[in-house]
């Protein structure tokens, strides 16, 4: 089976079920059920990556779909349903994290004061080659809420910088800063290699 691309929820090549969405919008509970079955796994994985625990992800998935029932009428059918769905999910998860004050765990207040230095390409390449997907996911759990959220939004959901900025409540030009910072945190967590994380040769 062809692997899913970022932001892709359904099977590759399969178009979004617009009829199903329209029926669900009209209040058809059967269609709603089908829609849930179609999209719940992807949203659960999104939440699983973005939130600290599996229980949180399960709760959030259910809450998101409860929310979706009410919000479905607001969906603009001319736009991508998957993108809209991820936006709702991202807003929900970030809201959840923010309310838990998780944003304070590893914030980015020092971004301007401590400029990030570029890593040594060879060392970074070695690190990437040596690490498995599972190790990356474990390392992701060690990141701060915002860093993890940003990476998940960008590399799991393929959300645009504008959408990420909107969800995180930051200005658009800073999304790159957030993502770069998140990558550095991730490298640190992956390798605990200060040389790599803090930068290489300049």
């Amino acid at each position, binding site marked *: 089976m062809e692997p899913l*691309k970022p932001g892709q929820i359904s099977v590759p090549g399969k178009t979004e079920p617009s009829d199903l969405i329209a029926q669900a919008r009209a209040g058809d509970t059967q269609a709603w059920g089908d829609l849930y079955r179609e999209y719940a796994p992807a949203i659960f994985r999104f939440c699983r990556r973005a939130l600290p625990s599996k229980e949180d992800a*399960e*709760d959030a*998935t259910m809450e998101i779909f*409860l929310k979706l*029932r009410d919000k479905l009428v607001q969906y603009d059918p001319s736009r991508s349903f998957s993108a809209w769905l991820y936006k709702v999910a991202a807003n929900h998860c970030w809201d959840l994290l923010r309310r838990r004050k998780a944003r304070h765990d590893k914030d980015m207040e020092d971004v*301007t004061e401590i400029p990030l230095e570029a890593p040594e390409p060879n060392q970074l*390449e070695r690190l990437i080659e040596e*690490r498995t997907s599972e190790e990356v996911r474990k390392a992701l759990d060690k990141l701060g809420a915002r860093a993890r959220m940003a990476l998940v939004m960008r590399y799991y959901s393929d959300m645009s910088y504008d959408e990420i900025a909107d969800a995180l409540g930051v200005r658009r030009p800073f999304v790159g800063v957030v993502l770069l910072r998140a*990558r550095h945190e991730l490298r640190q967590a992956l390798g605990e290699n200060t040389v790599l994380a803090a930068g290489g040769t300049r």
Partner: protein
Amino acid sequence: VNQSANNHLDEMTLLLYAERQLDRERAHEVSVHTQTCEKCLNLLRVLDRESRLLTRSLLEQDEPLPARIAEFHAQVKRSMQWIWGVVFGMALLGAYIGYAGFVEPWEQQFEQAGFGGTNLVSLLVFQGAFWKGWQSMFTLVEFVGSISFAIFGLFLLRKYFKRGTALAVMFASMGLLLLAPARTAAFQVNIDTQIDGEKSLEVKKDQVLKQDLYFFGPQLRVDGTVDGDVYSFAQRTEISGHVTGDVICFTRSAHITGQVDGNVRVMANNITISGTVERNVTTMDDDVNVDSSAKIGHNLTAMGQLLTLDGKVGRDVLTMFDEANISGDIGGNLKAKGKTLTISSGAQIDGTSKFEGEKPASVASSAKLASPIEFTQEQRHESRTSHGVGYYIWRVVWAGAWILFGLVLISLMPRFAAETIESAERYGASLGLGVLVFFGASIAALIACITIVGLLVGISTFFLWIVSLFSSYVVAGAVVGRWILGKASELWPTVGRMALGVILVVIVTGIPHVGGWVRFGIWIWGMGAIALALYRRIQPVIAPHVPSLPSGTIGTPIQPTPSAA
């Protein structure tokens, strides 16, 4: 495009380039640079590989979908159906309360002012469905409590019904009642006559109806024979003929002058029985008259304001009346409760007589009583303050109502409910704020009501105050439940904890002397928690700290340098 002192591109620029976030001109500059600078090209490639590793790692389906998620859909559908059913029921109740409290008084004033006539809404909806006498049987609050408890009971028994059947039956019945037009509509019979100028149903003297009769309309008169039961939802019901089954009436006035072979169950403003009822009579009315010619074969159970019993009752009489006058025959025991009981000269009671009231019964010397009346002095407001059976029943009813109320709140506003519970666990803050809200909001509402301009605000505030007062039991229950069973985030475990907590709270608040103080504390605590949650919610969210963009870091055009790379 930013370049370092040794003319290499910075990582940010390369990342933005890799992610196609640079504008065309800058992207071109990066492209040109990386064609000549091996170090930057390598970093760009590695960044791209890192992106792909991230995507692969995140998209990988490393764990199966939890069963809870897979099964959630059905739960949501069921629970939401139920919640909407409850909401619909409550809305219906609200409509009735609104009508009885606001529309009807206005209507009466209009009628008094000469704008008589019945408007279409009341004709179609309320007169056909709701009967004024309800108010004399229950207070409004008790009525709401009963309905809530009934719904909750139905909810608990839902497993025994087919899916949706319970709701369908309940709401179809309510809908039927609502839609029942005031004009005559009798099922199965085609008898449509005018009685006193109104379209009503009459089973004529020589007619025999060999089936049950259901009637909705202004007036039902049975002069003939109904070989079955009679169900009447009419303003006026008259049975002068013969009914072989039971007579069930929700009516304003009922007259039974004929013969009923079965039971008579009536809720009415007044009922007069002068005929024969072979079995039992159960009635809740303002006035009950059992004429001297009346014969009730078995028991008479009656509640209301005024009872006049001149006829004959074959077995026991159980009454709860403000004023009861007995001059007829009672074949069994008499058990009466009320303000006054008068037993006149023609009365005969073959069994024991018990009376609980404000003062001893007045008994005529010529009355024939098998035994002296056993009198018990009524304690004022006994049903509410002492521990009689009624007291406990209403405690249970209220517990059910609160649990149902909490279920609705938690289901409709899960996040706010969770926030409120969290707020309640900040004991100091919620109690402090509770004192402020409990006294401050009510006084403020009162002051606002005094001024004409603030009337709406005042009433709204007072309404919210009352709602939060009721909700405080739910909040307290939810927290107490958490103390015992631990925290839960899912709907049903949360509701279960809340239900357990509410039951405990109701038990504790029922303890004499202490209970009142506990109740007061719960009001303060619950209101404070709700106010705290609301306060935290409306408080503006502070945006996460955003660093200022280092000037010239991103987007500065690259300066072509011959020594690049």
